[in-house]
């Protein structure tokens, strides 16, 4: 540790070093940020990672493709379904399996529900980061409704593991369509409450507008994707640019802002929830009949080669890169996780702001630590 500090040169005089984390209420997990302060002003932020590193990429090298899916749940646990989908799409693409529409549409609906519940939790915890504890309970109240739908169809609430190569684990529950429509009706009524409680609040605006600005050039150079990048004007929505599943047959807007401050990173997510609801609206009545999975071989062997698949999770662009030598285990699996890359920008945008702003900026990047560490 002693050496580490010297090496980075943060232990200069008149600077006050604080360890934010690994156990801290607003790092959303076991992230350790070493801050050097000058009074209240943050001069340098240095993330120290690895407190929850499980070596998922190493584990993937000794298990089969069906098993990998269950590990991806544990990366970004709030976008579990989308992570599953990324691996499945990649495997299906490698095997050149044609996926029926029913599966594509169900996957899309589930992905968007996942996105909504993830953004709801973001809203809840962002409010809490700024000291508004009531938001947390409002957010969780609505998130429960989505999780109930998941529970009914997937048998599990958060870590769903609903995808498998070639389709889905089980068929949707008969109530699925009814419940989703009920939820949409309910949530359309509740979403204005979010705006009343936070978006329009004077203190909230003061705390977020103009804080932690990220320019478009920096957003691209730092590779900040997802709503955080789109708030800076970086058009990076994989659903739009490289449509997968059923995204090519729905109409939706890519939420783009140019300001790139904390408020717009927050606001982009609120708007995305509306877009997600629109997408589900277009699909929920059009689920065709058919099988819920394509028959696959029990042991999947990918042909030799390299496969790369990008999907849009709730936090940004997830890339899955598989190198196969033709065996049942991959040679190398790399997850390009959005949080890990987004974290790299933290020092750049939080410098010269106050500690309270750092918490707000960190909250607006919506970090999930298991996704950073893998």
């Amino acid at each position: 540790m002693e050496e580490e500090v010297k090496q980075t040169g943060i232990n200069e005089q008149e600077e006050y070093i604080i360890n934010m984390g690994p156990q801290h209420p607003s790092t959303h997990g076991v992230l350790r940020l070493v801050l050097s302060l000058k009074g209240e002003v943050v001069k340098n932020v240095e993330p120290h990672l690895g407190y929850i590193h499980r070596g998922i990429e190493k584990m993937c090298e000794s298990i089969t493709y069906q098993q990998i899916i269950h590990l991806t749940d544990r990366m970004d646990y709030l976008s579990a379904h989308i992570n599953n989908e990324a691996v499945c799409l990649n495997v299906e693409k490698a095997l050149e399996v044609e996926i029926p529409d029913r599966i594509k549409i169900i996957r899309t609906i589930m992905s968007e529900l996942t996105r909504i519940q993830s953004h709801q939790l973001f809203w809840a915890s962002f409010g809490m980061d700024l000291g508004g504890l009531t938001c947390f309970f409002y957010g969780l109240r609505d998130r429960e409704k989505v999780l109930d739908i998941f529970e009914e169809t997937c048998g599990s609430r958060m870590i769903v593991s609903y995808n498998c190569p070639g389709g889905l684990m089980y068929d949707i529950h008969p109530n699925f369509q009814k419940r989703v429509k009920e939820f949409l009706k309910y949530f359309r009524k509740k979403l204005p409450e979010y705006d009343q409680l936070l978006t329009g609040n004077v203190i909230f605006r003061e705390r977020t507008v103009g804080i932690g600005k990220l320019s478009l050039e920096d957003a691209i150079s730092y590779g900040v994707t997802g709503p955080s990048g789109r708030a800076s004007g970086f058009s990076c929505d994989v659903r739009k640019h490289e449509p997968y599943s059923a995204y090519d047959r729905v109409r939706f807007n890519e939420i783009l802002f140019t300001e790139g401050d904390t408020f717009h990173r927050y606001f982009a997510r609120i708007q995305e929830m509306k877009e997600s609801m629109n997408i589900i609206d277009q699909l929920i009545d059009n689920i065709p009949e058919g099988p819920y999975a394509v028959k696959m071989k029990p042991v999947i062997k990918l042909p030799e080669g390299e496969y790369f698949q990008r999907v849009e999770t709730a936090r940004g662009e997830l890339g899955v890169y598989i190198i196969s030598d033709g065996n049942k285990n991959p040679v190398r699996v790399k997850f390009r996780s959005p949080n890990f890359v987004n974290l790299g920008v933290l020092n750049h945008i939080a410098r010269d702001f106050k500690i309270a702003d750092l918490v707000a900026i960190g909250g607006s990047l919506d970090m999930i630590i298991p996704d950073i560490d893998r």
Partner: protein
Amino acid sequence: MNKTELVIFVKSLSQECEVKEGRQFAEATVPASSLHSLAVQLREKEVCSFDFLVSITGVDYGQDLGAVYHLRSTKHGHMMVLKVRTNDRENPHFDSVTDIWKSADFLEREVYDLLGIKFTNHPDLRRLFLDNSWGFPLRKDYVDDINIVTK
């Protein structure tokens, strides 16, 4: 530009690299010495302008160690893959691309941490997840009797 055009274009940039059309993207394999100069050109040249470094993947091919760069252009919307290899397992090192794409900072540190590939000119090359007493776990010859079950 589509795959074929990219292959021709990248070939014209550098004589040393071998470019082929992969399944999904154009794939260019460069020697470690000309990695940085080619990367600069790919970033700067108006026709390709690969301004978004999607990911850096460190790979242990058994004999060789390598890094795979996925590049994307936000302007033109095309992607390509840049590969670099070395057979030096003791002291593998490539040029850092942090001065071209800032996201490379963390991505290169991750590769260094898990595969032990050094990146020269990286501003702050330290281990990211593990401490200094660990080996490099993503290498194929990494041994851990306790935690890794071998069949």
